């Protein structure tokens, strides 16, 4: 029973990682860049929803919606101002710019909200008790898992069925060819950032609800772990991000419970290293042979 409860908290944590990893993986797939600022968009989502609920007294659902709108705008803005001018630049330049954007977001939050952690009221409270109260699951965990599944299904349908989704896949396959087919590459990339950032907002709300605290650096570690999850599952692959997030969440939760809470992060990273050694492109990643 104890094991089951750790497993469930792992699945819930993994679902948050999966939602964040989806944002990473989509952006990587289409723009071939590591968007280090993604983790900080999560933090922005957390703060926006906190203000909406605490200061403006809005209902949690409106708060989530507001956070999504703000983060979407922020994501599109970041892409347009910082990344678009560097489309032809070497990838390291883009990486450093992304790091600059990450510092910018963190330090702006530090100036506006201060360094002290703020307490975050979960969007829903309460727990379900199963097996005569031996196993209790919080509503937040259930909501997280449900949100993750809905997002996963919706995104899969979107990329495989809709016209815009097909355009996204075409751009990630071959930018020049997609442009020749009449696809607007720039607006497709903006759309990808918009979707990724909206997902980050949802992840931010869920993450803060399960940890109950929020500070300017809240997004960085989950961001790095979700990035790890995206690579673990095969970066660029949507089911891979889902699978990678879940596995890493479960590994982290179980190693915290049974091995060592201090080394839980290390075990997660060690799992990544082992997987990449066996399968250098991640679990579900495509192998692209190098051509001479």
């Amino acid at each position, binding site marked *: 029973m104890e094991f089951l409860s750790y497993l469930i908290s792992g699945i819930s944590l993994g679902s948050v990682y999966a939602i964040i990893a989806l944002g990473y993986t989509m952006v990587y797939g289409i723009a071939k860049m590591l968007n280090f600022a993604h983790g900080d968009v999560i933090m922005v989502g957390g703060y926006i929803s906190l203000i909406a609920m605490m200061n403006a007294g809005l209902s949690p659902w409106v708060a989530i919606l507001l956070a999504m709108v703000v983060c979407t705008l922020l994501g599109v803005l970041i892409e347009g101002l910082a990344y678009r001018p*560097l489309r032809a630049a070497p990838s390291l*330049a883009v990486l450093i710019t992304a790091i600059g954007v990450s510092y910018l977001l963190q330090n702006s939050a530090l*100036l506006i909200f201060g360094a002290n952690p703020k307490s975050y009221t979960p969007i829903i409270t309460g727990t379900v008790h199963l097996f005569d109260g031996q196993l209790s699951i919080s509503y937040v965990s259930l909501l997280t898992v449900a949100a993750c599944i809905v997002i996963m299904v919706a995104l899969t349908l979107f990329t495989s069925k809709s016209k815009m989704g097909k355009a996204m896949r075409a751009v990630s396959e071959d930018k020049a060819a997609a442009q020749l087919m009449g696809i607007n590459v720039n607006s497709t990339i903006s759309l990808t950032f918009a979707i990724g950032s909206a997902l980050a907002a949802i992840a931010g709300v869920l993450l803060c609800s399960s940890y109950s605290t929020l500070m300017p650096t809240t997004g960085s570690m989950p961001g790095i772990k979700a990035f790890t999850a995206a690579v673990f599952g095969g970066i660029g692959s949507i089911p891979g991000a889902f699978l990678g997030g879940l596995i890493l969440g479960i590994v982290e939760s179980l190693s915290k419970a049974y*091995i060592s809470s*201090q080394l839980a992060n290390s075990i997660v990273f060690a799992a*990544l*290293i082992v997987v990449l050694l066996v399968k250098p492109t991640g679990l579900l990643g495509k192998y692209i042979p190098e051509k001479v």
Partner: protein
Amino acid sequence: MKTNNPSRLKDFLTFAGVILAFLVVYIMRSRGMLTRSLSGQLVPICAYVVMAISLNLTVGVLGELSLGHAGFMSVGAFSGVVAAMSLASVIPSPVLRLVIAMVVGAIFAAITGVIVGVPVLRLQGDYLAIVTLAFGEIIKDLINCLIVGVDGNGLHILFNATGSRSVSDLHLMEGGKVIIKGAQGATGVKAIATFPAGVVLILLALVIVLNLMHSRSGRAIMALRDNRIAAESVGINVTKYKMMAFVTSAALAGAAGALYGLNFSTIVSSKFNFNTSITVLVFVVLGGLGNMTGSIIAAAVLTILPEALRGFDKYRMLAYAIVLIVVMLGTNNPQAKALVGKLIPHKKKGAEEGA
């Protein structure tokens, strides 16, 4: 791609510049012309300059992105501190102890470099980058669990994985002392690092890296960077040369770590986190890939800059972030480049000559 033409004059100017800068700063310090916070920054600046040179070897010369370079610095810092503190009674001379600490730091970091390099260098591109990040975090966590003490019987090392063991489990003899206390880090370190020693380390790192770049091995390493498949097809041993560059880079980072660690009385492993790796990477990219002179200048200027901006205090990191973005956009965006060219005519002429 870059051509890194071995121009001996440029190397000579780099050495001369470092020595000149050292003399100027040294004289200024002896006349009390430096502020307290700035003279406290001198050794860390030297350590970061060496870190930048060493990371430039991996990123600029070998062409592999490393996001965990602080891990090697950490290994060097803690092994160096343990060496310096446990030899305190045997070797009274602080200079000799500092040298031994840096050598020990370099050796341990090189060993870590081999352990990390074997799996990492099999991967490519962004996958390699994320695995170096992972190793950096693992090294940080492992050192966080170490408890080390020394007494008449030698070193006592405990690995505190579950958080249940403490300093008393070391069972030190009378007169023994604890060096590393797990997450609290190394405390009570005698700061023996000096500014001249830091400058000597910079010069040594420059000699090693520039000689490597101009040697046959260095040309092989740069050939791997420019085109791995072509290099392989003319018989260059990929693993050997990649490891050579990576382990040299790790060893230099270890020596820099030992210098850094012995400059403070307390040092914790969480100091050497992902952000530190990124800071050093920023030095390398802003200084120019494969350009050691650029790395030295960028590391020195960007370490002093936040100190110099102390007046703005709250806004300095914000300013740093904006400068970073603007510089990257300004140097890499075609339109911005053209604009800068118009504003500064001689620069445009230089660009045309280069093209």
